[in-house]
């Protein structure tokens, strides 16, 4: 049962990576990283149980924190003026497809 869950999580992470690489706008990539982060937290929790070593949960907590801080960092420094026009720059791309 645990193994099935780890497999599902692993596939979702792959999907997140694809979105991360393809993602047209800047915010798609941030979303992909955020989703990837939360999924890794789950993966580690599951691995902890699969491998029978419950100490892994400390790492899961750290993961969640670091993911939170890096997403905040990304957003905090992404609203400086260089990025102001670049999302709209990419916007026309958005509208065409």
């Amino acid at each position, binding site marked *: 049962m645990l193994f099935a869950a780890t497999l599902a999580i692993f*596939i979702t992470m792959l999907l997140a990576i*694809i979105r991360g690489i393809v993602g047209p706008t800047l915010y798609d990539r941030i979303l992909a990283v955020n989703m990837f982060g939360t999924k890794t937290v*789950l993966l580690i929790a599951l691995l902890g149980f699969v491998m029978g070593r*419950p100490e892994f949960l400390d790492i899961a907590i750290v993961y969640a924190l670091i993911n939170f801080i890096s997403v*905040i960092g990304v957003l905090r420094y992404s609203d400086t003026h260089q990025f102001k026009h670049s999302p709209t720059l990419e916007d026309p791309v958005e509208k065409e497809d």
Partner: protein
Amino acid sequence: MDIIITISSGFFLLVGSFLCFSGGIGLLRFPDFYTRMHAAGVTDTLGAGMILIGLMIISTDLLVFSKLVLVLLLTLLIGPTTSHVLAKAAYHNGLMPKTLNNHEKNNAKETSSSNP
């Protein structure tokens, strides 16, 4: 007694992983950024919660149980906040959501370009 535990944890794990999986697919297939946001945000918190509850049921000693509760609380707190901040920053920087009228404009453009 432990049969019930394994069944219920199995049930939670299955539902949780299905939710996460659907979130992943939603992330790829949805056309616009905000719809993807919706897919990812919802399944993140709910799917994670379900899996963690599933793990809690089969966890053996108290220390592991308390850590799992901690992780659950954290994900429930962090998940929505990050989605909120992400959406606000995106909107703030002028990423217009693809609303219905955009569609009409595009269709109008396509139809007008196609028929003359």
